[in-house]
């Protein structure tokens, strides 16, 4: 309900825009006039990202080594940064020189590859062999343009509450727990035992089973011709989540909602499919559960959730300087530096042998060797083609699972509904 807000907002926006234009122009004209002692023109690179990507020290180091480059770090809210990038791409100007893009948005931007610098033209092709194959592939357009160089991956493991496991008479050591669930069927069996003994729910929600299982399949929602194939991988994943819901394992909570955060504190679930970056969220949400969490491997052996790329919108004035900075950021030394500062796991498998990753232990998670665990799950994941409509299709199927959990749809009727909704999303 914006009544006067809209018009007031646009007036304010006009004023702001005018100010920015003035400021922007004067800034640029000043800088372009300046040259350093080597005769190199001064350039300013604006880098957009979200949260903390461990760039503060990198910025200082790079600026010291390259006095003609000034780097402006602009951290914002996750969804807002991606939407802002999309709008600036449509508008044709205003985009940052370098922008981080997350896994959930990479398909959307990959299909607009003409709006980004094709990094292969800048010689990025030589890095292909250094990356996890699926990481390299996901940021590539269908006609082979590379729009981004990978920074981190999430990996995917199974976080569990060792104290709740103990109370339910289950093993608590991480190796023994991993041995409980080599497959998803075994995982559901374990869940049934837990629910029977503890009278509590086992997993947070059916959607957090569907997504990792679907990502483990050789073919996900779409085949390489971009045709929806629900009867393959998605069916397998959907059945796992339905079985879990039927067995009463799910606490029916939606990730990143207040209810979910409450669920941590009220012991509403005992396991959580967790990527590397989730550990920070658990620690922040339930700080008093230090030492009560531990990490086992995920059933099926491989997985990933999240992770990002550095992209360079082609509308930028300094794409060459921007590429130089991106290329520098993805070098091993810098990637290890980022891992040490904020814990983001690199996407180049050679770095998983680095002592900094190999020996890293997370105190909050009962000193689990998180570097090793997440690296293994990321390394074992097979590349899967993500279709053009992957995002909307996933949301549509997740909504069907939520409807089952809300008791609005029976598990038997759910699959037909999921297919229908997915087809609608595919043609939207």
């Amino acid at each position, binding site marked *: *309900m914006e*009544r006067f807000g809209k018009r007031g907002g646009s007036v304010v926006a*006009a004023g702001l825009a005018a100010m920015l234009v003035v400021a922007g122009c004067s800034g640029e004209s000043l800088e372009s006039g300046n040259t350093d002692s080597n005769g190199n023109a001064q350039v300013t690179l604006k880098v957009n990202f979200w949260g903390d990507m461990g760039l503060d020290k990198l910025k200082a180091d790079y600026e010291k080594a390259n006095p003609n480059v000034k780097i402006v770090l602009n951290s914002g809210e996750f969804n807002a940064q991606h939407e802002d990038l999309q709008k600036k791409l449509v508008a044709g100007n205003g985009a940052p020189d370098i922008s981080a893009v997350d896994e*959930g948005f990479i398909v959307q931007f990959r299909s607009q590859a003409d709006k980004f610098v094709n990094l292969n033209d800048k010689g990025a092709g030589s890095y292909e062999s250094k990356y996890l194959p699926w990481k390299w592939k996901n940021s590539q357009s269908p006609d082979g343009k590379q729009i981004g160089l990978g920074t981190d991956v999430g990996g995917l493991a199974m976080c569990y509450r060792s104290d709740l496991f103990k109370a339910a008479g289950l093993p608590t050591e991480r190796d023994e727990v991993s041995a409980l669930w080599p497959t998803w069927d075994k995982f559901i069996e374990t869940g049934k035992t837990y629910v029977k003994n503890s009278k509590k729910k086992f997993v947070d929600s059916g959607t957090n089973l569907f997504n990792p299982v679907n990502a483990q399949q050789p073919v996900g929602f779409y085949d390489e011709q971009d045709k929806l194939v629900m009867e393959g991988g998605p069916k397998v994943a959907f059945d796992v989540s339905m079985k879990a819901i039927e067995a009463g394992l799910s606490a029916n909570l939606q990730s990143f909602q207040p209810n979910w955060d*409450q669920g941590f504190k*009220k012991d509403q679930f005992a396991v959580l499919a967790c990527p590397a970056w989730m550990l920070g969220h658990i620690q922040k949400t339930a700080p008093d559960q230090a030492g009560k969490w531990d990490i086992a491997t995920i059933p099926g052996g491989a997985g990933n959730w999240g992770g990002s790329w550095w992209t360079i919108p082609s509308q930028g004035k300094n794409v060459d300087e921007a590429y130089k900075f991106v290329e520098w950021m993805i070098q091993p030394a810098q990637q290890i530096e980022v891992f040490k500062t904020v814990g983001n796991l690199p996407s180049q498998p050679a770095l998983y042998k680095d002592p900094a990753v190999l020996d890293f232990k997370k105190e909050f998670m009962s000193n689990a060797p998180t570097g090793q665990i997440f690296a293994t799950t990321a390394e074992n994941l097979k590349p899967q083609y993500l279709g053009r409509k992957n*995002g*909307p299709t996933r949301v549509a199927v997740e*909504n069907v699972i939520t409807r089952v959990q809300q*008791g609005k749809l029976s598990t038997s009727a759910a699959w037909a509904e999921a297919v229908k909704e997915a087809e609608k999303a595919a043609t939207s």
Partner: protein
Amino acid sequence: MSLIERPPSRADTPAQQRPAPKDPGGWRLGFYRFDTKLMPYLLVAPFFILFAVFGLFPIIFNGVVALRNWRLDDPTQTGWAGFENFSKLLGDDDFWNALINTFGIFILSSVPQLLLALMIANLLNRKLRATTWWRVGVLLPYVTPVAASTLVFAVFFTRDGGMANWVLSLVGIGTENPIDWRADKWSSWIAIATMVNWKWIGYNALLYLSAMQSIPKDVYEAAAVDGAGPWRQLWQITVPMIQPVVVFTVILSTIGGLQLFNEPMLFDENPAGASGGSNGQYQTIAQLIYKVGWKDLNLGYAAAMSWALFLIILVVAGLNALATNRLGGGGKR
């Protein structure tokens, strides 16, 4: 505005025109002409320039985009589409669902909102202790940023441990199965309408109050002498006499209600999907437009929806204004 409307006063005019023949073409005359003929336009120009840039241009551009194919995820699909986007709209279940949701939430919010605002204004119009405190107090929800208040309401209406369910459990409702506010149409509509009402009741009450204060007291005295109680005075004196303000608030809340976006968006469990609940239970048209444009990346179709919404608002606001005009002994004007 007074600058434009006020004609040059009679006293000034001859005094200034008299020296003119002596000094033909003098700068004074030129300035005077400029001042009276052009200055008013110059002074109102900023508004119209801003309106053209931020109001008119988007509306026209939106209309052009609505007639085109424009997909961000597939740059090869481009060119004129004619009325294809609009004909697709008529057969789109999502659009009709969103339309029903929007009207449902609009009725649940506007009607109680304006009625309660009227009652509150009527109370505030009496002699109370600490009048200013009460008057500022009812405006506080309006001052609260909608994002902040909606986030609080999103927690308020959670299934497990939400305050709404706690209050209901005190009277024995949902003690076994707490209400999942987001799961059903009726419960999610009530939740969203509550947020809207909370924010706008005080604002409307103050508008009514300011109108009420211009009603002469002797009208009420005469009515009281004739034996009209407070209820009858409210409906037969107050409402007809503040009717222009009532029409104004009805039109404004129609526009606001049909453009409802922030509340359902922040209430959504999966805001990244913008689907308005697991089955579109509370997806409003504005939210659907956002989803089609920025999630499905189909800008042409989203533009067609925006135009359809624009037309719907025009029609509904017009009908409401007409109905309110007839209400309460209107129609004399």
